[in-house]
């Protein structure tokens, strides 16, 4: 069935593109390897949890940075969480920004923190869109009767 093969090719190419552009790293591959027939939605579940977690953390961070007296420890804790989550699923670019963010926190540099917050929001929404597209492609492949090709 050519359509299935084409869709699979498309999926593979898109995934490769995400890796090349640095949106995802090897950790994502690790996650994909944990998914099989007995656990068919593992990756989607983890990523969904990441989305929920991150959105909550980003809200908290925005609130915290608006305060009169900024509690840098709390911000650091949040960013640490976000860094942990993003590294768990392999969202590399988000993770990198989090590392920079933590540095600014240590320096108590408010402008740096705000700039990083903006950056992290951007990177997060980018990776979210990319991952959602990826899952949609996977759905299409499955709907066409094919199977998800193993990561290479």
């Amino acid at each position, binding site marked *: 069935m050519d359509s299935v093969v084409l869709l699979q090719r498309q999926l593979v190419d898109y995934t490769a593109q995400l890796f090349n552009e640095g949106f995802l790293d090897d950790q994502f591959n690790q996650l994909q390897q944990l*998914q099989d027939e007995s*656990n068919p939605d593992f990756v989607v579940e983890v990523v969904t949890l990441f989305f929920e977690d991150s959105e909550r953390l980003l809200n908290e961070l925005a609130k915290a940075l608006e305060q009169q007296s900024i509690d840098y420890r709390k911000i650091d804790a949040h960013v640490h969480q976000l860094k942990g989550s993003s590294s768990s699923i392999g969202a590399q670019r988000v993770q990198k920004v989090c590392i920079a963010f933590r540095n600014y926190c240590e320096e108590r540099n408010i402008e740096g923190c705000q700039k990083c917050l903006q950056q992290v929001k951007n990177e997060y929404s980018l990776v979210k869109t990319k991952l959602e597209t990826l899952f949609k492609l996977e759905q299409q492949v499955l709907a*066409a009767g094919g199977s998800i090709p193993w990561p290479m």
Partner: protein
Amino acid sequence: MESCNCIEPQWPAEELLMKYQYISDFFIALAYFSIPLELIYFVKKSAVFPYRWVLVQFGAFIVLCGATHLISLWTFSMHSRTVAVVMTTAKVLTAAVSCATALMLVHIIPDLLSVKTRELFLKNKAAELDREMGLIRTQEETGRHVRMLTHEIRSTLDRHTILKTTLVELGRTLALEECALWMPTRTGLELQLSYTLRQQNPVGYTVPIQLPVINQVFSSNHALKISPNSPVARLRPLSGKYMPGEVVAVRVPLLHLSNFQINDWPELSTRRYALMVLMLPSDSARQWHVHELELVEVVADQETELTPEQRLMVETILKSSNLLATLINDVLDLSKLEDGSLRLDLGSFNLHTVFREVLNLIKPITSVKKLPITLNLAPDLPVYAIGDEKRLMQTILNVVGNAVKFSKEGSISITAFVAKSESLRDSRAPDFFPVLSDNHFYLRVQVKDAGQGINPQDIPKLFTKFVHNQTLATRNSSGSGLGLAICKRFVNLMEGHFWIESEGLGKGCMAIFIVKLGIPEKTSESKNPFLPKANHGQTAFPGLKVLVLDENGVSRMATKGLLVQLGCDVTTVSSRDECLHVVSQDHKVVCIDVCMPDGFEAAARLHEKFTKNHERPLIVALTGNTDKVTKENCMRIGIDGVILKPFSVDKMRSVLSDLLEHRVLFEAM
């Protein structure tokens, strides 16, 4: 009147003349009197003559003229005064009437003449209507032709056929000189001439896609007239002497699924179009009619993108046609079945998927026939089984297909469960002796329908191949009757039994079969909800109880997934207190994320809780830091192993295996 006394003629000359005058007058009178009679007679016959009044007048005029002539008969000889008076009266009247008639005719004769003109006019109109009828009829034919063409397009899934057919049929219907299709190239920057009607091998002309004329055509879904000199219309050397025919171009939206030369996949968001160019014959005065343009637009628009539901249906249809092909091939298996040489293809497969596939394949038909169909899989039905997947699916499909075929209404239910001993032994199958064992289970499938039913006496005949039960054969049935015979053979090969129950005609029917299927290799920990892959071979730690402590939900889930992959029985906690609460002697390993604030604290408390060393679970620290401080902390607290994040399945496996072997491991970076 006085006779001349000179010479007496031989004949009386005057007498002769007078005689002839006399006779002529008589005949004139006669004629004069008969003309009105004739007129009256014929006009009475015809109903439409509008000028009866004129006739009367005319009649009077003629009659009086006749009367005058008649009376003059008497005036040849000597006549009395009465006759003279009568003659005068007649003459006067005649004069009056004839003048009146003359005046009247001035009005009437033009009218009569115009009647003729109107007649001619009507004749012309009739001829024109005839011509238009001819045109309409031609259009009707064309429309019918196009409908057939679009039907053809819709039913064909082959891209090449669709386009070729489109070009050929359009060329024929519209009597085109040339019809060509320009397809976008891989890069999407150019259009390449891909198909033409007349030329057999189109030279690979390309034109850049950004030409204004192309943009204009692509931006609307109408067929637009373009100049014959534009690059997309210069398809061949001018064959006509004077004028190339008018050219029209229209965009053709491309299907996203295509089995063409295009292998690389373009960006999903851009809508790609092909360009269809149609040329009228040169040197003809023909112009593009509005209805012809509409026709072209409709045909071009047929190539629309399939919606996901349509695509699913298309795939299902393709799959079922593949399956049908398989079934047909397997009819040849019957001969193998006969002489016992058919072997089952045993393998491990997903049993639930088989049922779902059958349901998907039969759903289009049941929804068309409006028969509700349900599938009930028992909760204890194993997901995986060992057996001949293809033939099991064939059997189920055949049985369900029969239920659908012979039901005009009512619902169909498919039930599948593991047959325990009571349901295995059946009075209808006295020679069926199931043997229960640990490696196998008996799958019982029941398909119940509310259709035509079967006379119980005819049931044994059903399984005889090629015999079609006459009472079952309705005008809708087709098929050679092989199906049930084959299925029974398959079921027998699977060491099972197949029978049909029915209470009679019109009372529906239930088909039941039991087959023996193998159970795939299970781990010793049978209660493990996450069955590892049958052929994974990497379940290193089946049933190992592990506790994971991590504040971060995402990494907690990732760690859990990883450990589950290794076959562990994982519990997760998110706080130190919860960890201490939940932990027990059964937990062999506790994984702690020491980057969280309470991580080390938790490890320390674990030590306190389990005073005896051999009872204490092994503590593995998950950390992202490799700095010295972390290492020292780990050693101080008494952590058995450290794994650096991000970690892989392999790394975790090696750490755990070393730990469990030696009960101590210090670094695993």
